[in-house]
């Protein structure tokens, strides 16, 4: 073909210079013998290069330096005048952006229902370049100092900042090291490393709080009392847990009252000392205990009226 563009570096940091050369072969039939080579960036003006000269074999070469590449993506054209117009001989794509910053806020949760460890992170500022994130991890021992078995890289879906490690790669009840690597043409970065046992970051769901209908014949009615029962969330039933209950009268500005250190399963729980408020809202949440764990969310509010 008649013309050919060569670019020093097709992908640069935003604002860096870009050097390009365009060569026009002598045997490019329809052209003048020594055509004046012109350049155009995107839909900018046609402009001459910095220098143009003739190579021994008759080839014409022009070079140009774009001092600051401010487009994240732009096409550079090499043209020559022809008849009363300009003819494009070649086109090259230039991209500009930033190397990836270190991903931050890496956190992971173990889901007992899907049996997978799901981690998420913040990717950091836009790089304007195709950037691959990979969740890396390996099995370790107590203090995460040594790598035991490796775990296959977890590659997130397109433009997703979360990845799910399948159960078969996890060694539960042992520590593992997890981090995120970000990589593009301009560089690589890594997040800080986490050292965790998947079972210490189980996403625990709260129990289901239920009101108990107490048979007045069996149990003497006590004003200002409520009877409750709850059972642990079934998939987490094997984990020893501790729970706390909070209740609040539906009155403007009322505060929550907290009852801590409750068992995760209770067939009958009597809550007294409630004054004759119209209705009380009650919620319960649990945490794995004494082994380490994360608090579950509060259960949906249960509206109950204390016995009169």
């Amino acid at each position, binding site marked *: 073909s008649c013309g050919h563009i060569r670019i020093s570096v097709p992908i640069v940091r935003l604002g860096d210079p870009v050097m390009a050369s365009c060569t026009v072969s002598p045997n490019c039939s329809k052209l003048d013998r020594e055509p004046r080579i012109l350049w155009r960036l995107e839909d900018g003006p046609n402009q001459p290069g910095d220098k143009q000269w003739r190579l021994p074999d008759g080839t014409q070469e022009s070079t140009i330096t774009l001092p600051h590449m401010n487009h994240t993506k732009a096409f550079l054209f090499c043209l020559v005048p022809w008849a009363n117009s300009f003819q494009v001989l070649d086109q090259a794509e230039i991209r500009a952006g930033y190397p990836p910053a270190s991903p931050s806020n890496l956190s992971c949760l173990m889901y007992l229902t899907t*049996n997978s460890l799901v981690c998420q992170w913040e990717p950091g500022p836009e790089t304007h370049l195709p950037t691959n994130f990979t969740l890396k991890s390996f099995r370790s*021992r107590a203090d995460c100092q040594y790598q035991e078995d490796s775990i296959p890289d977890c590659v997130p879906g397109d433009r997703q900042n979360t990845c799910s490690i399948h*159960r*078969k790669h*996890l*060694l*539960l*009840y*042992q520590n593992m090291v997890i981090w995120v690597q970000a990589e593009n043409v301009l560089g690589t970065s890594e997040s800080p490393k986490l050292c965790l046992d998947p*079972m210490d970051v189980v996403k625990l769901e709260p129990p289901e709080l239920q009101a108990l209908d107490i048979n007045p014949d069996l149990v003497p009615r006590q004003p200002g009392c409520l009877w409750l029962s709850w059972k642990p969330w079934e998939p987490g*039933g*094997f*984990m*020893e847990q501790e729970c706390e209950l909070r209740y609040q009268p539906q009155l403007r500005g009322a505060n929550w009252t907290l009852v801590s250190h409750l068992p995760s399963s209770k067939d009958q729980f009597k809550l007294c000392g409630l004054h004759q408020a119209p209705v009380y809202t009650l919620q319960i949440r649990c945490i794995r205990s*004494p*082994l380490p764990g994360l608090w579950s969310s509060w259960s949906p509010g249960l509206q109950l009226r204390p016995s009169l």
Partner: protein
Amino acid sequence: TLPLPRSFLLKSLEQARKIQARSSVLLEQLCAVYKLCHPEELVLLGHSLGIPQAPLSHCSSQALQLTECLSQLHRGLFLYQGCLQALAGISPELAPTVDMLQLDVANFATTIWQQMETLGVVAAGQPTQSTMPAFTSAFQRRAGGVLATSRLQSFLETAHHALNHLT
């Protein structure tokens, strides 16, 4: 007796409960799908298939010998993991439960093994897989699954008892 860290005991108890919970699910599924609901009707088949009944004699509260108990616990888990591996391909509906159960048993075996290493009571390397039962028909695989899982249940019941005793 050797000092066993409380976190090891608590984790082991939790792992035992986790496996027992999942074993119950598998037994319920085997009963629902294949009408194999009575392990006691499969004892004879178990003999011919070589389904193991792993001993935990050193873990009884009367005659507890910690080091032997831990190695019996590890060997038993290793044996039952082998049995569960032989169940691979039992059926698409049950495969997920069997896979998860097998992983849980393998992870519990690792927890025990690593604690034995920490205590320096490990004689040789990890035990190699003994001969796994070979199932030659779909029925044998299902019946073997029922028997192995129900024996794993009682094995864990004894283990849970012993570990509770140590906490």
